[in-house]
């Protein structure tokens, strides 16, 4: 659509199309207006007032409290726990333990060399060196044992996610009915913020590794399922016909044609699953998963950014290494890798020798003296920043003043505005927006999600959260589009940005809690800042890619017509990149919503605080209801901003 309007010479067609869409939009609005005119007087006469009427809420505190008591009282005796959950829990503990013991037995040298070899085999010599360096850095930072714990947890969680995701994907790829049934489920799972899973899992399994692994599987399996299904469904029809004509059975077709053809998607699925599992492994430290995430979390208690960073860097390194290696493995599919058999055999022998040498000399643990302490210098830098930026910067005012102004002039009016709107008008606005952008189905989902928030009885805090999310998204988009445009225009800027974006995207969000509070004080402003930092990389990346992908011919045509740089950007690039920009908006919303909980940890209040409170106090009623409300907000926002083409990944 946008492509048509932008190209020169098709003005007639485009005008026609444009008026057609405008008419359709007008018709939708008209229809909504009529519906509103009929419904609103009725609703308003029965339940007047701004907030969601109390008569239309369901109080879940009683039943949820009873459920949680029942679980705790019966956990040690009920057959459901003794013969099912107990086994699941034991199996997870056993698997993680087995992997952990193997890693420990290999010693630091063995693990490092083995990781390097795997990377070499899968992705080539450069990434192998990078991998080895990354593992050594984890040891140097004094994080060897936590790194192994995280790795053990990851191995089990990723295997389970891949198995589950591949099974679901296989079913969806082979059967149209399953595909149709599964798609909305996977769609929904992708907009759920990770924290929403934690509380119910903890209740059943208790604090610790089993709960963490299971929450991770729920979080990380959907991309695998989605990409498997995609790969199987998109198999080249020509090849498939050829295979069928050769008389292959359905099973042969699957094993010899469909699965091999879908290899790239399968590997991309694996890659996505690993990345999501890693980000969840950190979040799961809140429920006692141990490992690197726990170190970050513990460092926060003594307000020690440096120590948090020392544990955060290995996470970033692991993420970057795993991402690059699986990514490169996907690209190198089919080509021969890893040198000749002889070289490979030598390398393997060398690895075994190193591991054995480590074992025999009794140096399995990372030597304590080989550590670099980065905590202190980092803390000094953070201290300097907050000392000099917090207040009293000449002319500009300090960051604390900005935060105050932002709260008073943006967040407060937005929140108060939302909360004073009559409840039915909020539903109406949501319906109108969702319908204009999507279909009546998306509009219905959005309205129902918003109504569910009212029914749950958390209307006011949800609108508070919504105001924070929208403010954060607005800031993210302004910064993200600007940076994205700059990166799209200059290779050098993009190259410089890339590692920065990598770090922001994979650094555990807990690490920047203290700096944002130190800069912006306690309140909603630091919550917004944390959300912006987290969501910015995805928006920048998608914008850059979208602008870069604009047809060079269209740009060339505009240039030859004498368009200036700004004109080219405004009139050619941006309109042509519209789908990508819409996708960036959508991803921005979803990602910002994912850190609402982090906002709760720095004084953001509202739903985020309620979820944190629920986890901290074991209060299922408060936590789960707030979690459900966040999920509903996410669904609503996703539907309202649903771009024409859905992303295959969740961003991070």
């Amino acid at each position: 659509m946008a492509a048509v309007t932008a190209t020169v010479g098709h003005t007639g067609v485009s005008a026609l199309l444009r008026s057609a869409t405008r008419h359709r939009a007008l018709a939708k609005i008209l229809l909504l207006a009529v519906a509103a005119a009929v419904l609103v007087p009725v609703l308003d006469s029965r339940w007047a007032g701004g907030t969601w009427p109390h008569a239309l809420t369901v109080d879940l505190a009683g039943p949820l409290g009873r459920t949680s008591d029942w679980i705790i009282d019966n956990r040690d005796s009920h057959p459901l726990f003794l013969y099912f959950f107990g086994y699941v829990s034991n199996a997870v503990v056993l698997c993680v333990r087995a992997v952990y013991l193997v890693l420990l037995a290999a010693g630091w040298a063995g693990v490092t060399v083995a990781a390097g070899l795997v990377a070499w085999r899968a992705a080539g010599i450069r990434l192998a060196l990078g991998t080895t360096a990354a593992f050594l850095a984890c040891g140097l930072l004094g994080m060897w044992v936590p790194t192994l714990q995280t790795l053990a947890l990851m191995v089990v969680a990723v295997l389970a996610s891949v198995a589950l995701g591949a099974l679901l994907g296989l079913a969806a790829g082979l059967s149209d009915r399953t595909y149709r049934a599964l798609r909305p489920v996977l769609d929904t799972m992708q907009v759920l913020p990770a924290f929403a899973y934690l509380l119910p899992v903890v209740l059943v399994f208790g604090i610790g590794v089993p709960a963490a692994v299971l929450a991770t599987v729920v979080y990380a399996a959907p991309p695998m399922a989605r990409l498997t299904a995609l790969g199987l469904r998109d198999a080249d029809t020509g090849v498939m016909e050829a295979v069928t004509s050769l008389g292959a059975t359905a099973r042969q077709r699957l094993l010899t044609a469909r699965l091999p053809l879908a290899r790239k998607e399968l590997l991309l699925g694996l890659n996505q699953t690993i990345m999501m599992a890693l980000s969840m492994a950190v979040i799961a430290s809140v429920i006692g998963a141990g490992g690197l995430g726990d170190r970050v979390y513990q460092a926060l208690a003594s307000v020690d950014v440096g120590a948090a960073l020392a544990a955060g860097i290995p996470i970033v390194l692991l993420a970057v290494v795993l991402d690059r290696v699986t990514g490169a493995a996907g690209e190198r599919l089919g080509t021969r890798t890893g040198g000749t058999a002889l070289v490979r055999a030598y390398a393997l022998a060398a690895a075994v020798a190193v591991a054995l040498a480590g074992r025999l000399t009794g140096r399995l643990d990372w030597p304590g003296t080989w550590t670099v302490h980065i905590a202190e210098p980092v803390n000094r830098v953070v201290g300097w920043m907050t000392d000099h930026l917090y207040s009293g910067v000449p002319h500009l005012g300090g960051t604390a003043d900005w935060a105050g102004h932002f709260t008073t002039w943006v967040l407060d009016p937005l929140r108060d505005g939302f909360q004073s709107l009559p409840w039915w008008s909020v539903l109406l606005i949501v319906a109108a927006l969702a319908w204009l952008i999507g279909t009546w189905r998306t509009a219905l989902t959005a309205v129902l999600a918003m109504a569910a928030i009212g029914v749950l009885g958390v209307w006011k805090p949800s609108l508070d959260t919504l105001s924070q999310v929208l403010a954060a998204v607005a800031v993210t988009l302004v910064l993200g589009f600007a940076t994205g445009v700059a990166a799209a225009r200059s290779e050098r800027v993009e190259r410089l940005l890339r590692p920065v974006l990598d770090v922001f995207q994979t650094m555990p969000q807990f690490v920047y809690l203290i700096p944002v509070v130190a800069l912006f004080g306690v309140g909603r402003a630091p919550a917004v800042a944390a959300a912006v930092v987290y969501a910015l990389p995805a928006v920048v990346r998608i914008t850059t890619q979208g602008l870069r992908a604009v047809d060079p011919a269209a740009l060339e045509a505009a240039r030859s017509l004498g368009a200036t740089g700004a004109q080219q950007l405004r009139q050619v690039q941006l309109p042509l990149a519209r789908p990508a920009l819409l996708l960036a908006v959508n991803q921005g919303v979803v990602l910002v919503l994912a850190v609402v909980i982090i906002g709760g940890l720095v004084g953001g209040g509202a739903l985020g605080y309620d979820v944190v409170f629920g986890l901290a106090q074991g209060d299922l009623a408060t936590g789960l209801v707030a979690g459900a409300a966040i999920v509903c907000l996410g669904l609503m926002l996703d539907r309202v901003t649903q771009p024409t083409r859905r992303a295959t990944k969740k961003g991070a």
Partner: protein
Amino acid sequence: MRLRTMSVTAGVSALLLLTGCGAADMTKQASPFAGAQGAGTVTLSVQSWVGAQANVGVAQYLLEHELGYRVDTVQVDEVPAWDALSQGRVDAILEDWGHPDQEKRYVEDKKTIVAGGGLGVTGHIGWYVPTYFARQHPDVTDWKNLNKYAGRLRTAESGGKGQLLDGSPSYVTNDKALVGNLKLNYQVVFAGSEAAQITQMKQFAKERKPFLTYWYSPQWLFEKVPMTEVRLPAYKDGCDADAAKVACAYPHTPLQKYLNTDFAKNGGRAAAFLKKFKWTTEDQNEVSLMIANDRMSAQEAAKKWVDSHPSTWRAWLS
């Protein structure tokens, strides 16, 4: 290498699922990282405040260096920690600020947790203003005069009222009810985590700005930011029984230790040691300050304290 690990893991878990016909006991769920290198392992729960880190730091140091155990620590909030203790995921909580509901459920009814004796430190929660502000305005330390200062304690978050800064959601607090019942013109702003609260308090102190905060002792931050307690209506036994009607100060609580029942019975020297572990507020603060202020690791701080107080800890080992 990793491939082989995978198949081993898969095989082991399949075996487990096939042969496991007995019941799986949810009360015996040790951490998979426990006891990995042969030695006996003790898992201790650490709460997010530094005092708790100090207890655990010293206990860990002595368990490892004097008794030859391996120690795992897990950071868990207070209420979930009770749950984890009852399941055996952690062996001991060294500093509990009073959770009557949990005590009744796990200690009295289910008997999966036993009391481990006092820690020797007395805890107290209260409202505090920085001492530099209390010196200028001595009458601010009485709650009756707080409304006079509401305007000076206003922030962007408190919306026209004064700000009462509260901390982590895991802490015991009656502040919302207190503000209402004492008719104070204040808004409770929840920092959401102790880390955020401390950072904010330090920022205020650096600028010598007035603030009013929920805080507790023993706490190392008093050494960095001297604070004076605001007098609330005196605490009487049972005045905080009804959470909605509270209009009195917080009690002074002798902090308690709790152990998992199994561990208390079969934990050998480690359990005996943890039961005897008892020190003073000054001792705890000394270690806390090293951790939080001098940026030492809990282990370095513990070593320093252990080296200089041999008579105190020798008694715990006998």
